[in-house]
């Protein structure tokens, strides 16, 4: 009895369908806020921006809302998706604002886990202050075409932290001028590695956890003119593994991988940072928001002060080849559908406050990466870190992955496949074909009964 009852309650969400969207709507105007002490909780993964956000929000938001306290809960990066979505599945969240990766939105919206902010945004947010794609990437579902925003589509989130890859290069080893094309970059790395024994040419993400190896392949795929999928026809097979896709895989595995350190096949953010800090890499790629630690002399062998380190390290936008695409990183704020009404109101108020021009500039100065164009172009941001100019220059060049409910499985397939190719467990072309075939099967299987997820 209990069994049946429990399942019935769980089923009350109704039939699921990728096209059918069941997210509850947030009010257009912020409801009256409580005057009692209130704690606004976020969930994010463990990294410096999480601490920066908590500190910044408590200092600044308290000025307008003295009774509010901000708490940023953090989970291990590998557990980030699971931790949020198991709570969503529990229909009870210990957070009011989920900081979802841009590709998580589809899953959360389809399951009705986060509030529909369309009306709220119309009334409270100046959408013209943003690059339209940034607004779309962190909030829109269904996903926008790369570089655009569909003004009629619903919005489910607002930008919190922008991000993209930066190229980190050793000025003292390869010269002050960063390579401009992917080919140049590879030959510079090659030369540097030959000239400096003990230093590898390249360092980049190759791990099979999170979205590490997948982002790496997607970046090379983009630069070499490939496509991840045909979003309209929902086709991956034949698109991802077309000639451009295969060329990208070939470049990654046969030209770039040989220039990396031995055993770097499980590297992610922290290992790449460690390699740079230990002076073991000529050119490295990493997320901008994760690069702050490189300037810390306590972690680095490159210099005893920030200035000394910056004498050796340069930061540049990614080289171009056939296209100039760069990966879109960063995350938006999304309001949990299961949070109490008072906290949802507070969350909306916080978001409205956070997206103001002056607050965005202060966030930039506090180490955040803003999304409003005026804040991105502000001296507060551009002077806050040597890589921030890279971000500003990269904004018009960004491309995201698939934002569909099956994202977690798609990215896992790609991660493990690319990781296998990078580590010699599969031939590159086989790996890419397998990825395309398995991903296509996931997209096609949404209507199938039984055995899903294998």
């Amino acid at each position, binding site marked *: 009895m209990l069994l049946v009852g429990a399942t019935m309650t769980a089923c009350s969400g109704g039939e699921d369908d990728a096209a059918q969207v069941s997210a509850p709507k947030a009010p257009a105007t912020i409801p009256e806020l409580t005057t009692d002490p209130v704690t606004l909780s976020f969930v994010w993964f463990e990294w410096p921006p999480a601490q920066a956000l908590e500190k910044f929000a408590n200092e600044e938001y308290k000025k307008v809302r003295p009774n509010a306290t901000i708490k940023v809960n953090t989970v291990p990066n590998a557990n980030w998706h699971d931790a949020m979505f198991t709570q969503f599945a*529990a229909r009870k969240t210990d957070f009011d604002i989920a900081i979802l990766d841009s590709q998580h939105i589809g899953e959360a919206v389809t399951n009705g886990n986060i509030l529909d902010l369309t009306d709220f945004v119309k009334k409270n947010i100046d959408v013209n202050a943003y690059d339209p794609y940034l607004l779309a990437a962190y909030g829109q579902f269904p996903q926008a075409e790369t570089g655009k925003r569909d003004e009629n589509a619903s919005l489910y989130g607002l930008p919190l932290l922008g991000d993209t890859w930066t190229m980190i290069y050793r000025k003292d080893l390869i010269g002050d001028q960063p390579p401009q094309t992917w080919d140049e970059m590879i030959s510079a790395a090659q030369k540097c590695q030959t000239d400096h024994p003990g230093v590898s040419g390249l360092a980049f993400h190759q791990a099979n956890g999170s979205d590490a190896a997948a982002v790496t392949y997607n970046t090379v795929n983009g630069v070499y003119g490939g496509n991840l999928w045909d979003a309209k026809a929902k086709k991956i097979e034949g698109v991802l593994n077309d000639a451009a896709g295969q060329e990208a895989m070939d470049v990654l595995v046969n030209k770039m991988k040989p220039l990396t350190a031995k055993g770097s096949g499980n590297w992610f953010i922290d290992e790449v940072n460690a390699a740079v800090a230990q002076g073991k890499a000529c050119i490295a790629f990493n997320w901008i928001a994760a690069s702050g630690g490189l300037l810390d002399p306590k972690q680095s062998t490159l210099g005893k002060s920030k200035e000394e380190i910056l004498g050796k390290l340069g930061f540049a936008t990614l080289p171009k080849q056939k296209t100039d695409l760069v990966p879109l990183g960063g995350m938006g704020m999304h309001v949990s559908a299961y949070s109490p009404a008072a906290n949802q109101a507070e969350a909306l108020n916080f978001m409205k406050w956070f997206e103001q021009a002056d607050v965005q500039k202060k966030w930039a100065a506090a180490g955040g990466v803003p999304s409003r164009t005026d804040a991105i172009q502000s001296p507060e941001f551009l002077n806050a870190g040597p890589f921030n100019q890279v971000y500003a220059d990269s904004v018009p060049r960004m491309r995201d992955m698939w934002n569909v409910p099956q994202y977690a499985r798609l990215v896992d397939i790609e991660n493990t496949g690319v990781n296998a190719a990078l580590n010699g467990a599969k031939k590159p072309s086989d790996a890419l074909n397998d990825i395309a075939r398995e991903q296509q099967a996931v997209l096609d299987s949404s209507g199938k009964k039984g055995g899903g997820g294998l």
Partner: protein
Amino acid sequence: MAVSVNEAVPASPVRDRTPPARRIGGGGRGRSVLEIALLTVLAVVMLFPVLWMIETSIKENRDVYAVPAKFVDFQVTLAHYRDVFVDPGGGRSALSVAFLNSVLVAGVSTVLATLLGVPAAWAYSRFALKAKKDQLFFILSTRFMPPVVVVIPIFLMYRQVGLIDTPLGLILIYTAFNLPFTIWMIKGFVDEVPAEYEDAAMLDGYTRLQAFRKFTLPLLVPGIAATAVFALIFSWNEFVFAIFLTSSDDVRTAPPAIAGLIGGTTVDWGLVAASSVVFALPVLVFAYLVRRHLVAGVTLGAVRR
């Protein structure tokens, strides 16, 4: 009261037992030296990771990554141990909160498992029950289910009753997890206390319950303590349930908190090592206290000596 449980349970191999064979014939000095050398090598291999962990915990981060590795010539710092307990920004660190949570969850679940397990073990030992062997085997078998499998329905169940991300949820699952072990282990201790004591007491007019409480229970105390320590170690080290059933800083226990130290933008291996040492110390101390019962302890009471 001639027999104490301590004597009833023979001393473990760990201490003072006469050797079985004193190299009767054969062997000789050369072989003995060879054996000692072999043992030493094995001991070094087994203990090196532990030593390296301790060393890493007192190194500065710059030296942690040094290649070739620095074995002796590094600066000693206790900063990592401070970081385990104190937040860099002042106040208690998230790790120390996790340690407290671990103490709470492991402690309460152990007490519960003991309270439920001791009476059951005594009843299983003393009474002729229907299908007793099957019941006991069933109890033990619940312990052998893969945690990843159990966690799915437990998750759905907890979702219904609001136990996800609560200390109580972890306490309940750990209690259920430790109960089979507790029953089997303590039943072994009860088996070794002659039932005649209770029979004699009942002839003197005590009820069976009183006889249990007054005569058997005191004899069981060392055994119960040992069992509880093992239950404590199991729940202290447990990771799978903890990572899937908890998410917030206020509830998270130490194993997922320590695992959370990697995967950021830089890994503070010194901190990982220091927190691992702090986390492992109580277990090692406790394990030393129950060294007599280790064999039974690690085999859920299935193998006794």
